[in-house]
């Protein structure tokens, strides 16, 4: 078993560890594929071509070929759940598989399930027939016709697609997960909220193992318009080109992703001979919008990071890797405020530059990447905003490093989580 560092955050009996990872994003349908893509310098960001964006040139990091998971879900029900379903099922399946958990290993009521579920939007095709049937000769909506009979053309399962928890419940059905559960919604901090809740439940003994993760929004005309109207993304003609190497003022694109972690108490993981990937050390949360009303404020992000450091009983100098949750200037400034930016600075990685902002799934994807890529030096400079050009290559390999993962919401909320990597062996 790996020796436990003296500065560990919790008493041995309280420690919760990560034993499984799963992720699907624009660079691949598994952790291995994503890592391979990142190392080769690939970007998952491409121009959107599968729907009308109104103006050409809009880009996103879409999952073009989501993995097909064999289920007995009725096709109509599956349709109402959209891409959310395959992203959640595939990432959960990979996480369970990588942790070595078989369906018969635990009582279903002992398996907790927690997820941040990205915003759900209705599908145009669910509503189109109702409006078409209700048009007047002039092409306007005839409300009398709509209310009298047109509405009956609305796809009957439409309301299911409007509930964030339905896909989550379907995954619980598919994997037989009956224990403690909760769905958090829907922005950049939600994935970390899910992990924090899983850790709490495990520590209280309410579950023996827990899955915690997140799913991003499905990129659609509505999600694109929402992001654009919010000021998160700008129309193609207004973009400034490549973002700055330090992450400030970088162009934001939306990303699709499902990502999942398997967590369990260290004692349970050791008993079953699981491969322990990391220990969960601490969390911090805060909420305050900045003066623009668009992002979590610098102070809120500082507060969340300091909260996580405090709970983990670590100082800033003990963090070796920071996984950024956004490309916002506020996050960069908050990190600058807390961490020394000299040669001993932690390596900083902003995957949003090539994988887009995966919002509710983002911090979980970043946790998986931070834990699965052993040699950070192989990561392309494009996603490593620090050390800056001329400061040398990022440090690595880092087998026992401590990783800070941030999740930043565009509604003022932010969360930070620290995990301590292990060498990966327990037996």
């Amino acid at each position: 078993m790996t020796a436990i560092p003296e500065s560990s955050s919790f008493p041995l009996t309280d420690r919760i560890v990560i034993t499984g990872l799963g992720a699907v994003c624009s660079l691949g349908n598994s952790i291995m594929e994503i890592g391979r893509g990142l190392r080769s310098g690939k970007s998952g960001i491409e121009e959107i071509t599968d729907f009308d964006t109104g103006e050409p040139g809009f880009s996103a990091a879409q999952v073009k070929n989501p993995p097909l998971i064999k289920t007995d879900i009725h096709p109509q029900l599956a349709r109402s759940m959209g891409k959310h379903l395959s992203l959640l099922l595939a990432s959960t399946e990979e996480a369970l598989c990588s942790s070595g958990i078989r369906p018969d290993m635990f009582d279903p009521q002992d398996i907790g399930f927690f997820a941040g579920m990205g915003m759900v939007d209705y599908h145009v095709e669910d509503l189109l027939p109702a409006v078409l049937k209700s048009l007047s000769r002039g092409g306007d909506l005839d409300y009398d016709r709509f209310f009298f009979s047109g509405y009956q053309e609305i796809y009957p399962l439409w309301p299911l697609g409007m509930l964030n928890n339905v896909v989550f419940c379907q995954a619980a059905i598919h994997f037989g997960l009956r224990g403690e559960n909760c769905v958090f919604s829907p922005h950049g901090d939600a994935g970390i909220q899910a992990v924090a809740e899983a850790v709490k439940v495990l520590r209280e003994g309410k579950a023996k193992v827990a899955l915690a993760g997140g799913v991003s929004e499905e990129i659609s005309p509505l999600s694109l318009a929402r992001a654009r109207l919010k000021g998160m993304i700008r129309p193609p003609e207004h973009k400034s080109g490549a973002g700055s190497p330090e992450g400030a003022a970088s162009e934001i694109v939306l990303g699709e992703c499902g990502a999942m972690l398997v967590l369990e108490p260290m004692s349970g993981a050791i008993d079953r001979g699981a491969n322990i990937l990391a220990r969960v050390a601490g969390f911090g949360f805060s909420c305050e919008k900045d003066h623009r009303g668009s992002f979590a404020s610098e102070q809120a992000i500082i507060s969340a990071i300091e909260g996580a450091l405090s709970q983990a009983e670590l100082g800033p100098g003990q963090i070796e890797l920071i996984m950024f949750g956004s490309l916002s200037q506020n996050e960069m400034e908050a990190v600058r405020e807390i961490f020394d930016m000299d040669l001993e600075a932690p390596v900083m990685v902003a995957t949003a530059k090539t994988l887009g902002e995966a919002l509710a799934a983002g911090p979980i994807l970043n946790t998986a990447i931070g834990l699965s890529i052993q040699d950070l030096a192989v990561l392309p400079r494009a996603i490593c905003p620090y050390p800056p050009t001329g400061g040398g290559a990022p440090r690595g390999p880092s087998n026992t490093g401590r990783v800070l993962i941030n999740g930043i919401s565009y509604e003022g909320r932010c969360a930070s989580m620290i995990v301590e990597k292990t060498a990966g062996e327990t037996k």
Partner: protein
Amino acid sequence: MVVTGYGMVTPIGKDSRETFENARNGVSGIDFLSSFETEGLPCRIGGQVDDSWLNTLPAKGLQGIEKCSSRGLKLMISAVSEAVAAARLDLVEDRDRIGVSLGYHGENPSVEDMLLLYRYSGKDAWDVSGLTKNGVYSFFNFFRRKPDVATSILSILFDCRGSNLTIVSACAAGAQAIGEAAGIIREGKADVMIAGGCESNLNFSGFVGFVLIRALSERYSSPEKASRPFDRKRNGFVMSEGAGALVLESLDRALERKAPIFAEVLGYGSSADAFRITDVHPRGEGAAFAMQGAIADAGLTCADIEYINAHGTSTLQNDQIETLAIKKILGERAKKIPVSSNKSMIGHTIAAAGAIEAGLTIMGMNRSVLLPTINYEFADPKCDLDYVPNRARELEHGVVLSNSFGFGGQNACLCLGKFRR
């Protein structure tokens, strides 16, 4: 963990006191809907909140926030205002240690939105290019739709800069928001949490979805008779709107600041049916597991439970399965323990239900009153517990469960206790 404030706005009351008194008297808040055109729909009733009961935003110069505020959020602002006033939360100085936990699903698009969002191009295709052009569609519409915007606005309005989470587990969301908030305080991540839920689906697109899946009551002699949990002639739930909020904090902190203490949150349990999206588990295993979890979390046994505030939706399936689950955990005692459904008077407020019912349960404990299940006229042999039929009952009780079971199969249960020094 103690409750130092509560507030609510419901179809039967502008605040908790009025809601409780009307519920005690068996007053129904269900009527024909006036908030949108219901002609032609098989269900035309619901529980509306009087517009005059909505609190105006508590700060001036917040027009942007006003525009981002959905009706559900406005209901919640009313409920939270009452709760924080009762808890005297304005006297707490360290606002970084006050958090918000909200169960909510955001506002539905209106029919007008559908037309604006997707202007018909005349070629059997939608023209989405107008979506983001200035003046075509307000971006505020998107933010009223986003549940987490509501939580963030609450944190701004009530100056709460601590943990902030939004829970979207359908009808279990309000109870889960309270359970999660209690956990956050227990872990030391916050000193005080404002927790609860809100919902307003009494608009065409919100309502018609439930019509299409045939979940609503369609056979009723009069609106106030439609919500009839556990009654043999029940035939669906009645959609309502409302909000409920609790202020939670640790006992030590509440005593230290001399806050009023109304009850204890003794335990919380959650579970998933993992059965079918549209059906509850036929043996009630998920519901029973959530109740057992709450009791175990409280460090109690089933023998300690003195009353159950049921989910009791008035659907055929829920009421029968909930009865089965209660029998499963209470065994022989089940028939001796009073069980009642506030939804018989208020209707189903979805994400708000768990929080409103928790508030009413606390008031009932402190007043030694069990609220009734109204419209209980025809016994169902499969629903054979003591449902406190039609009239409130005076009974001292101090340890209770409050059930909330969400669409899709998410279950939550709160174990609440009367505060005894």
